[in-house]
């Protein structure tokens, strides 16, 4: 009986390899242990030894063939006493079609409606074996599932992924034929085996533009990103939990929350002088240390808190079940940390004095930097403030941190030429941009909130009444 020589798996993860060289020709006799061919993987070149003895009846896969799937017939061996020629004829045709392995591979672009599936969507998200090189990804396989988005996963894995808030399509499966099983979800929870996020649904909303451009960077698999850079030209730093949380939450925010932005300039001349006066009159302890030192940001926090009380319809959170209208203004303040950021919350800031807010903020920021905040100190909140003024940023837009419906992006207070009563004068101006969740806060409502903020920040005395 002729013996099929199969493409061997040279490592547990190998799915295909290149047939680099044949060391035997058709008609050659081989003994068990003879090296008959060289196989190249992404990692190494390895020799293939004959397991049986006989005559090479036919070489099915010629030298230099790339990406030969593991277990494909690469040659046929006629056993002793068999007619090598007859054997060769018997196997002339293509031996074994590559299995429609593709069905095990998932297309992350699952949020895209089927009708809008772009041709390139079929090609790009194929999370192929690590062996895949850029060239290979260009090959369009007539994959069995190119039209379907079915993800093969065990019921338990599906439920665990849902509970953990992980998109099942992003998990690498280790079960039979790449099926996602419970332990893959366990691994994904700690960030292992997670593929890039699915292409956002908005990609499909702009038909022509989306079709013309390549997929957004986030839709690239790790493998695709790595393939664009030469090995050794970078260092791969593993993500920590904070990085992952930021990535997940803010990506989810921009993908699920319809943002819009409102910008206003605020004259903070009075605020600056008031601040100076108040700080100068701060009681001092025996060592001459003042009891408080207010920052501009402390005023911003207080003004935002009071503004939200004045426009209570904007102090809300969107839920599917209904609008959460908050009674208090709990203001999150973004604090930059090495490698990330966190937003500790000043609770019920509307009722707190500026010095209380200031001291509380200083304490929270210090403990945030040493990563000693308790979850209840940074979870929740009704709105937030992000201030990049100290970096000289004039204005910017911030990403809403759910469950908030708004976030205020605060730029630098600077002297600008403004027109007042027909004359150009110098004023201290600070630009602020309010990001709003349009599901909860409409344009006019957002404008009212920002107007209330402006009135307070320009007349800080109003904050105390």
């Amino acid at each position, binding site marked *: 009986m002729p013996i099929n020589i199969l493409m061997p*798996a*040279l490592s*547990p993860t190998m799915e295909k390899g290149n047939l680099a060289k044949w060391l035997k020709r058709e008609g050659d006799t081989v003994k068990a242990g003879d090296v008959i061919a060289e196989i190249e993987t992404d990692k190494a070149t390895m020799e293939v030894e004959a397991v049986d003895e006989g005559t090479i009846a036919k070489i099915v896969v010629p030298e230099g063939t790339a990406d030969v799937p593991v277990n494909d017939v690469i040659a046929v061996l006629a056993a002793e006493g068999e007619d090598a020629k007859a054997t060769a004829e018997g196997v002339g045709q293509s031996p074994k079609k590559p299995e429609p392995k593709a069905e095990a591979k998932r297309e992350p672009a699952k949020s895209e409606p089927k009708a809008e599936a772009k041709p390139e969507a079929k090609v790009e998200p194929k999370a192929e074996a690590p062996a895949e090189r850029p060239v290979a990804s260009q090959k369009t396989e007539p994959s069995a599932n190119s039209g379907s988005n079915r993800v093969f996963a*065990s*019921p*338990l894995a599906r*439920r665990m992924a849902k*509970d953990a808030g992980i998109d099942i399509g992003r998990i690498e499966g280790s079960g039979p034929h790449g099926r996602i099983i419970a332990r893959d979800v366990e691994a994904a929870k700690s960030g292992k085996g997670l593929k890039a996020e699915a292409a956002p649904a908005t990609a499909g909303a702009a038909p022509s533009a989306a079709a013309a451009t390549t997929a957004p960077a986030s839709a690239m698999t790790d493998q695709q990103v790595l393939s664009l850079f030469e090995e050794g030209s970078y260092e791969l730093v593993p993500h920590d939990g904070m990085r992952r949380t930021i990535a997940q939450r803010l990506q989810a925010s921009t993908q699920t929350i319809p943002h819009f932005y409102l910008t206003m300039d605020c004259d903070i001349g009075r605020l600056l002088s008031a601040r100076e006066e108040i700080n100068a009159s701060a009681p001092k302890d025996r060592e001459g240390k003042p009891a408080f030192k207010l920052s501009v940001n402390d005023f911003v926090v207080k003004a935002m808190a009071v503004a939200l009380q004045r426009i209570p319809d904007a102090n809300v959170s969107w839920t599917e079940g209904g609008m959460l209208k908050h009674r208090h203004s709990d203001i999150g303040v973004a604090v930059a940390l090495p490698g990330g950021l966190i937003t500790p919350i000043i609770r019920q800031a509307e009722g707190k004095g500026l010095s209380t807010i200031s001291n509380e903020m200083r304490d929270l920021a210090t403990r945030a930097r040493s990563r000693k905040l308790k979850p209840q100190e940074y979870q929740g909140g009704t709105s937030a403030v992000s201030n990049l003024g100290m970096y000289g940023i004039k204005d910017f837009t911030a990403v809403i941190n759910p469950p908030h419906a708004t976030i205020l992006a605060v730029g630098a207070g600077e002297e600008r030429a403004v027109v007042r009563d027909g004359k150009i004068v110098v004023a201290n101006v600070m630009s602020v941009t309010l990001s709003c969740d349009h599901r909860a806060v409409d344009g006019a409502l957002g404008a009212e909130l920002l107007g209330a903020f402006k009135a307070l920040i320009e007349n800080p005395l109003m904050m105390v009444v």
Partner: protein
Amino acid sequence: MADTNFDIIIIGSGPGGYVTAIRAAQLGFKTAIVERSFVGGICSNWGCIPTKALLRSAEIYHYMQHAKDYGLSADNVSFDPAAVVKRSRGVANRMNTGVGFLMKKNKVSVIWGEANIGAPGKISVKASQTPAPKDALGPGSYQAKHIIVATGARPRALPGLEPDKKLVWTYFEAMNPDKMPKSLLVVGSGAIGIEFASFYRTMGADVTVVEVLPQILPVEDAEIAGAARKAFEKQGIKILTGAKVAKLDKKSDSVTATIDDGSGKTQTLTVDRVISAVGVVGNIEGIGLEKLGVKTERGTIAIDGHCKTNVPGIYAIGDVAGPPMLAHKAEHEGVICVEAIKGLDPHPMDKSLIPGCTYCHPQIASVGLTEQAAKDKKLDIRVGRFPFIGNGKAVALGDDQGLVKVIFEKATGRLLGAHLVGPEVTELIQGFVVAMNLETTEEELMHTIFPHPTLSETMKEAVLDAYGRVLNM
């Protein structure tokens, strides 16, 4: 001169060894298997299979005695012990011949004798006392890149309770009795002890079971073991738990046992025969493991999830590689072992998915965590139960004792364990084993249609019960 060079040599042709050999041959390895006494090992010859033959005779005998319950009459029901044993041996022989045929069919060479691993890759085989079957290779030196130890286990001998094969039996003698004992003491209430207790009780012997632990069938769920105990006691089996056999006084054709009930009180019991079923120990001696430095733990060989020992080229599977000592566990380890050698990257063994079956009456079958084990792991669980008295088929069969119990993890709906006692449950358990392997949750099980009328409906009802939705109770 026969070829002495192989890719894989397996030592031991029990259910683990011979299945490993077939899988290795399927994967294209040149394979040989070394056996010293019985092709097919204990399982086919002295274990699983012949005991099932004995228990079948007992079962039919039981039905004949109770023919009236079914509207039938059978008078003067009796049995011929020699014929019962003869049938059992016939079944064993048929299995044994079958394994020999499978070796031939898969071109696995059988080497006859006692194997010793001199060095990784080298095995020397000495002649054994059992005559070799024809076509087997004989003593000599053999080489193989991979050596898989599948030497199995043997009955444990406790001091003072050493089997003498005449009055104090192991399963070997219990399976091939010279005469039916009128009274019997079974020491140990694991699967082997309980199966023999059940067999001999049905055949009319006075049977006493002594178990040192507080529960019979110690690996089973306490509730299931409790239900089984009740059923056994109803049949007339005396059960002493938390008790120990302190002393055996042997007479010419009887034994007087002194039994310590755990609190220091003793009683004596005179019986015709004693069966020592206090577990089995791995056959790790005499094969050269010590010299090679192969690591052992508690009398078995230490292996990783792919059955590798600490010495490259030496592998171990089955009973000799640790508990649970079950044929199906051995078979699966063998398959994993050679597939890993081939580089196929099989999933490592998950011991939480190995089912266990005891073929007494009523039968017992289980897989996964017991309720206690789940609680010990601090898992938040949901437990469902369904008794066979609520199942039409069981009532029609006239065999409606027992229950099905399932344990789910509350948060995920993961099926953590299933425990059954009752009619044919050894055939039912596989439904839960498949479900667990496919990682189904309660939802899929509830959506699965179970045929009516079958015993299997109790499985679905137990699942429904765990979620407060039981129908027929």
